[in-house]
Every structure is written in structure tokens, then in C-alpha cells.
């Protein structure tokens, strides 16, 4: 038997919870959140460090605290959710198959669906580091789960590959728990994570950050016994003669996150090859009408505050879609494609489909000073912002008003960056 529900939200992390609350506040009551973990909150449950909520709450919260702010609302509003429930299949006609212990395998047909499935970490294989296959190699997030959720210690002497925020946070975390972090290697000439994390997670503990370095070989038959690291040239190729052996029993990989999009793929939703997430318009609607995406499933965010903000958009759009029986208000329709020019890695959204205010998030492809980022139609500047410094690790945003959009006559605008490359 297939049950019907107005709105199904897949994933109960910050994105899923914000989207649900936003849909509720926009008049939808028949909502169901499906979450495979035993709690709501997603990745935040293991992010016990602080740094969440500065923009949203003007307070510095830890992950679980930030999550609780939303969970409380879900409980108060009595928005239904099912935990320990894994969505296994999803089709473009919005039929969801899920499984849990109480209901077994069951199907739901939804009027609208929001994909809020988060992201996963890039494993070692994706990097092809030569060497043996010992134990003691973890992605940083897995180590985080072992320590913060399970209370297990992964190892004693540690090298971290990749200076993304999770790697930096874990350098501090493992140090506080008594491990020795011997080095953090970063293949790029600049750190992948935020400056403040380099400061308080590495510098505070005198942990060396080796920029333009990578791990070139893994040693150890059973448990990891060490790694060889080397300097890399401009093309990220190891420079012969710069190899250095570091003995360690643990290697953490913090080498990137990939949006979790198996379900989107199975529904035939168009994906963006740069972000790995769905291609969406400013309402966060995917290429399939009535299916929306937000949070890390859409593109990897560094700040949860933006995740919540984006999810609110998706929640409201889904509510509008349900209330209008799937019809978009026609007179406002537009079909504008956003292209990326030099210096810009990606934008979300990539399409503008109606004359309503739109927040366009973007990331740059390098570090720039005194940068001016403009949205142009031909030579005409539609909107622009100035930034003293932009870095790929930090997402930026330009707001387009309905009026801005109304002025766009053709079907294409381009995002461009002018500035001093660092």
C-alpha cells in the first residue's frame, strides 16, 4: 500500500529541520521527515566544537546546541518524523521507498520532496596514495565519530592529510584527548580551512602545517607505522628528493566532501559537475518539478547558518508548490541561466526562473584581494559586491532583487570576478 503525504523531507540534519519548519510556517501541515540516524541533527551531533550560529543567533554554539534549537521547534510544532529510517529508493514521480524496524519496507507518494541528505567524505581510494593497506587510516569525520560519539580513541600519533576545517578541528580534538599530532599536510599552497581554525587548532598546539605537501606513501602491514610525505610543485606533483618519513599510527584524511546524491541520481535529477549537487533555480527547485534540494546535499557549505537559510528557501518553495497544485505563478516566469566567468568556481542557483528576490551563493576558484564580483548581462552590470579578500574555503553571496531580475532581458547572465590573485 502506498501512503500519500504532501511533503516528504529526506534527511533530518539542519537542512531538513529548517526546511520542515519553513514549510510549516508557510501553511503546510502534512509533512514527514525521514532520517536514517537515531537522532535528528545530522552531522551536527558529532561536531561538538563551537562555531555554529553566529549569523543566525548571534551566538557561538556547538553543533548539538545549534541542532537543539531546531529540534525543539520540530517538537513544539509537532512536525512528524521517523528516525532510524533509511530511504532506499526514489523516483521522479516522487515515490519514496524507505525501511525501518517498525514499518519494514514501505512506500510513500509525496506531492513535493526536499532532498536534504547532506554529504559524505572523500575516501582514500579516491586519492590513490600508493603503499600498503594497514588499519589506522580514517577519514577525519569517521575519527570524529569514533571520538565524539563512541568514545573510542583511533590512535596515538597522528598525521593529517588535508587542512579542511574537519581536519583542523580533529587535530585539536585528538591533541586534547592525549594524542600527538605530528603534522598537517596540505597539497595546496594555502590552508583549506578557515584562518581561525588554523590559529586555534594548530598554532595553539604548535602543530606544523605543511603547505604544498602531500602523503606519497603509506607504510605498515597490519597497523599503520608511518607515512612518507613530500613537497609538491605547482602542478601538485611530488618533487623528488623532498621525501620525509614520519612515523605515526594514524592517518586522518580531510580531503573534501561530496554531496550525497544517490537518490537524486536515481530520480534522474540533473546534477552539476562542479558542486556534485543538483542544478537548481533560486527556489532551490531541481530539474524535476516539485523536487527541491538544500544544505550539503546541494553544495558543500562551511557554515551551518547558510544551510538553514537555504533550507528555509527550499521549505517555502515546496510549500508554494503544494499550495499552487504544482503550478508556478506564470506571469512571473523567467528563464535565465547563470554562467561562471573567470575567478568563480560555481554559483548556486544556476538558474533564475521567476521574478522574486534571489540569493546567489558562490565560491571563488582562488584567493583574491580587493575583489569586485559582478553579475553582468553582456557588458551591463546587473549587481555587484566588493570584498577585501575572498577565499575558496568561504562561501559568499550576492542578492538580486525582483527589480534586478526584471531588468534582465536575455536568457544569460555571467558571474565575473576582478581582483588581485594571491
Amino acid at each position: 500500500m502506498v501512503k500519500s503525504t504532501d511533503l516528504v523531507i529526506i534527511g533530518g540534519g539542519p537542512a531538513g529541520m529548517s526546511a520542515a519548519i519553513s514549510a510549516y510556517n508557510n501553511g503546510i501541515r502534512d509533512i514527514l521527515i525521514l532520517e536514517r540516524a537515531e537522532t535528528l541533527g545530522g552531522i551536527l551531533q558529532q561536531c561538538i566544537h563551537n562555531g555554529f550560529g553566529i549569523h543566525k543567533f548571534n551566538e557561538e554554539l556547538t553543533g548539538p546546541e545549534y541542532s537543539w534549537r531546531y529540534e525543539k521547534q520540530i517538537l513544539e510544532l509537532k512536525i512528524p518524523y521517523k528516525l532510524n529510517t533509511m530511504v532506499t529508493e526514489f523516483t521522479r514521480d516522487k515515490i519514496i521507498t524507505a525501511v525501518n524496524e517498525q514499518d519494514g519496507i514501505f512506500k510513500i507518494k509525496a506531492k513535493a520532496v526536499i532532498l536534504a541528505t547532506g554529504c559524505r567524505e572523500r575516501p582514500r581510494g579516491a586519492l590513490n596514495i600508493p603503499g600498503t593497506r594497514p588499519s589506522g587510516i580514517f577519514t577525519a569525520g569517521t575519527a570524529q565519530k569514533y571520538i565524539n560519539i563512541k568514545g573510542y580513541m583511533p590512535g596515538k600519533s597522528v598525521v593529517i592529510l588535508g587542512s579542511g576545517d574537519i581536519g583542523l578541528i580533529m587535530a585539536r580534538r585528538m591533541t586534547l584527548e592525549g594524542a600527538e599530532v605530528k603534522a598537517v599536510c596540505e597539497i595546496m599552497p594555502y590552508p583549506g580551512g578557515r584562518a581561525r581554525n588554523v590559529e586555534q587548532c594548530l598554532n595553539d598546539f604548535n602543530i606544523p602545517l605543511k603547505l604544498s605537501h602531500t602523503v606519497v606513501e603509506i607504510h605498515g602491514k597490519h597497523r599503520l607505522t608511518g607515512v612518507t610525505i613530500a613537497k609538491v610543485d605547482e602542478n601538485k606533483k611530488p618533487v623528488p628528493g623532498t621525501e620525509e618519513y614520519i612515523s605515526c599510527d594514524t592517518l586522518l584524511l580531510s580531503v573534501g566532501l561530496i554531496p550525497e546524491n544517490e537518490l537524486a541520481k536515481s530520480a534522474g535529477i540533473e546534477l552539476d559537475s562542479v558542486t556534485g549537487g543538483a542544478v537548481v533555480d533560486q527556489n532551490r527547485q531541481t530539474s524535476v518539478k516539485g523536487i527541491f534540494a538544500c544544505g550539503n546535499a546541494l553544495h558543500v557549505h562551511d557554515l551551518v547558518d547558510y544551510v538553514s537559510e537555504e533550507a528555509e528557501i527550499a521549505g517555502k518553495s515546496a510549500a508554494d508548490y503544494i499550495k499552487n497544485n504544482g503550478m508556478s505563478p506564470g506571469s512571473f516566469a523567467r528563464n535565465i541561466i547563470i554562467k561562471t566567468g573567470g575567478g568563480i568556481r560555481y554559483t548556486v542557483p544556476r538558474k533564475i526562473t521567476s521574478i522574486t528576490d534571489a540569493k546567489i551563493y558562490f565560491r571563488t576558484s582562488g584567493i583574491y584581494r580587493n575583489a569586485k564580483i559582478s553579475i553582468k548581462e553582456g557588458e551591463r552590470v546587473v549587481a555587484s559586491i566588493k570584498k577585501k579578500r575572498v577565499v575558496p574555503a568561504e562561501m559568499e553571496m550576492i542578492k538580486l532583487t525582483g527589480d534586478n531580475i526584471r531588468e534582465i532581458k536575455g536568457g544569460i547572465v555571467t558571474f565575473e570576478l576582478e581582483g588581485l590573485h594571491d
Partner: protein
Amino acid sequence: MYDIVIIGAGIVGAMTARELSKYLLSVCILDKESDVAMGATKANSAIIHAGYDPKEGTLKARLNVLGSEMMPQIAEELGVRYINNGSLVIGFNDEDAEKIKTLYRRGIANGVKKLALLDKDELLNLESNISKNAVCALYAPTSGITCPYELAIAAIGNAMDNGVDLKLNFKVEEIKKNEDGYEVISSFESVKAKYIINAAGLFADDIAKMAGDTSFSIHPRKGEYLLLDKECGSLVSHTIFGTPTEKGKGILITPTVDGNLLLGPTSVDITDKTDTSTTFDGIETILSQVNKYVNSIPFNRVITSFSGLRAVGGTGDFIIKFSNDNFISVAGIESPGLSAAPAIARYVAGMLKETGIRLEKKKKFNPYRKSMHFFKNLSDEEKNRLIRENRKYARIVCRCEMVSEGEIIDAIRSNPKATNLDAVKRRTRSGMGRCQGGFCSPYILDILSEELKIPVEHITKSGGASNIIIGRTKGGEQW
């Protein structure tokens, strides 16, 4: 005292154990590792070769063709995946075309069925992503693919269900010959047997020496692989080989039974029989070669790399012989050893018979084993029926490969029992998907600890000292 002890639980030992479990004999199979199928059987191309490759008249040729004919039925009985996808040897010039014709004639002589020579159009019709530079091909429709460790695990599991004993972590270090047979000794224990079958792969020469046979030696030749995400498995449907060179069959491109795409192997002689590391050069070699055969391989979809060691005997043929009285060595089992294994097992049983041992069939031999992936193949209704009986089938532990806690517990409880993370992985695929265990290993660790009743810090990745964690946080280390 066993009738027969088999040393080595690779595919040869496994098939031999299963073959012998059909008879009223007491059999024990030993391996030095913490699980079965940890040698060459774990890391190879997984091709069930048709049999056009080995030289006419060799034992290799005979056992290859027979083994590959036996494979579909064995796979069916053992619930192991086998796909008859066919193979193509492709050629780019006249010289290649000549070699391909030689292979064709050899195949016919070896008794391979349905072989065909293809021209360019026929080739591209069969496999549209092949390089446009290819001009001809040898088509072997009887070639297939399987999962080699799954096959070995299932064969040993089935043999155990039929009465065979398995002893793991048993490294044979000495063999004594007594009046009534042999004593096989490790540092911790010993077993006695009337007959010994030496199927120790790379170390078969060392084992033979222990019985006084120094007539052969085995050296390792490394083959490295890259495995690509399941999204790429449909790039080709056949197994694609380049034309062979003096160095061997060369690098191939093949879908796997799991739907991934496999690239490799390289071929490099090494000296250390335990060196299964991957190398920078190996990875580069693969990347540079496969592009010539097939268009647009998405290298950014590599999910893991690994390497396997060929046990090269140097005679050009399998070495299957008596090393001493009632002591059979099965050595130098290079490719196509996987394909030939069922036939090797039969051949070895025949040699035993010659010694006068009585091979009396068991009445109750059960040739069947439940597929390790049986749950996946059920309909939703059947799954729900099982879930109502055991809720753990509804608790998904590995999200990439959709493996439930119930299936993981099955792997820990059924023969041959999984005792570590990699062993669970080889039986259930949990941790083999695109996240490579990042999400599920913390949970599997707890399940193993609970099922085996040992503390988590003693649970290993693959036996020995390969512990995953070192203890509790807060300085509560156990080491």
C-alpha cells in the same frame, strides 16, 4: 588424525576441500591468515577465462577449459555471482591481427567453444566505447566474470557445512613424517594427517621443501589494479584485453560482478612475497594504457586501488605433483588458476585415488549454500516477512551498499565465520562502496565486538595487529 590436511585456503584449497567433502573422509584446511582467500585469490582480475590463452597440450590448457565449463554450475550451487559476459582481445594493427589469429587457432585446439574473429564493425557493434583505432578482435563468448573471494568463501563454507574443519591463523612452519602419516606444525599447535595437499600459493615451494621436495621454486610477480565507482561499470559490458605481449595478457578493462569497472593488472617481478603495496608507477602504468583501448574512462571515479601477487613457477605450466608419499603439491598456479580451480580439485582427487585411498561418496552431501547476498535478491514482500521475524534486517548499516545489520550478523555466524572488518566486508560488501567504510565501520566494529564477545579495541581490520582503535578516549587506552 585427519585423512587429509589441505595447506592454504585460497581458491585451490577451497575447491579441493569442497571436492573432498563429497567423500567419506576427514578433512582439515589450514591457513596462516585470519580469514580464507587472503592470498592471490583476494586480488586478481576475476575472469573465468575461456581457455584460448594457455599453450596447446599443457595441463594449464586442459584444466582451464574444463574448469571454466564447470564454473556456471558450481557458482549456481554455491550462490556465487557469475556472469557470462564474454571477452574480447582487441588488435590495432597487422601484427596484432596475426597474434589474434594464433590465439584463435590455439583456442580451437584447446577445445574452447564458440570462438570468433571479428572485424572492426563487428567489434564496435558489440562494444561501442572501444577506441576507434581498434581494427579486429577475438571474441570468446564463453568467458565470464565472478567474485573470486566470494567463490572461495562459499566453497569453504559449503565444505564446512559438509563436515570439513577449518583452522585459521595456522601458519605451517614444519612438517614431520611419521610411520602413519604427517604431522603439520605451527608455533602454537599441530595436526596430523595421512595425506597432505599443499595449496600454499606463493609459499608452496617452502611447504614442499618441508617435505623434502626442492624441485621447484615460486617467485612473486605483482599486479596492480584500480577500481572505479559503480557508475562506470557499464562503460563496457565485455572483458577487454589488449593483444598479449611476451609479458603476458597485459592490462584489461572489465566490469565486475558488482557493477564496478576494474582496470589492471600491471606485471612487475618483485622479491618480497608479502609486498602487496600499490605503487605510484603501477598506477601511472594503468592510467597510461587503458586509454588506448576504451574511450573516456572517468579516472576521477577511482574508489580504491589494490595489488595481487602471481605465484610464478617458471615452468610455463601448473606444477601438480607428488612431493613425497601421499603429499601432493599444487604449485605455480598462476592465471588462469581461478578458472581452472574446480578442475584442479578434481584432478587432485584423481591423484589421491591413484594412491589407493578409498573415495566413497557421502550420502548426505549437500552441494548448496545460501547466497551471501540472498537478502538483496528478495522481493519487498519477502524481505518484509523476514524483517518481521528479525528486525535487524531493517537496520541499514552500510548505506552505500545497503547492507543491514541482519546480513552482517549472518556473515559473522555462518561458515567460514567472519572475525574482522575486512572479512565482513568481503562477505557482505559493507564498506566496499563509494565511502569505503567511513560511515559503517564504527557500527560494524560494535557488532563484531558484541557477536564475538571481545572488546572493541581487539577487533581488527584484517587480523594480526591491525586493530582499528586503541581504546577509550580520556586516556583509557588498553594497549
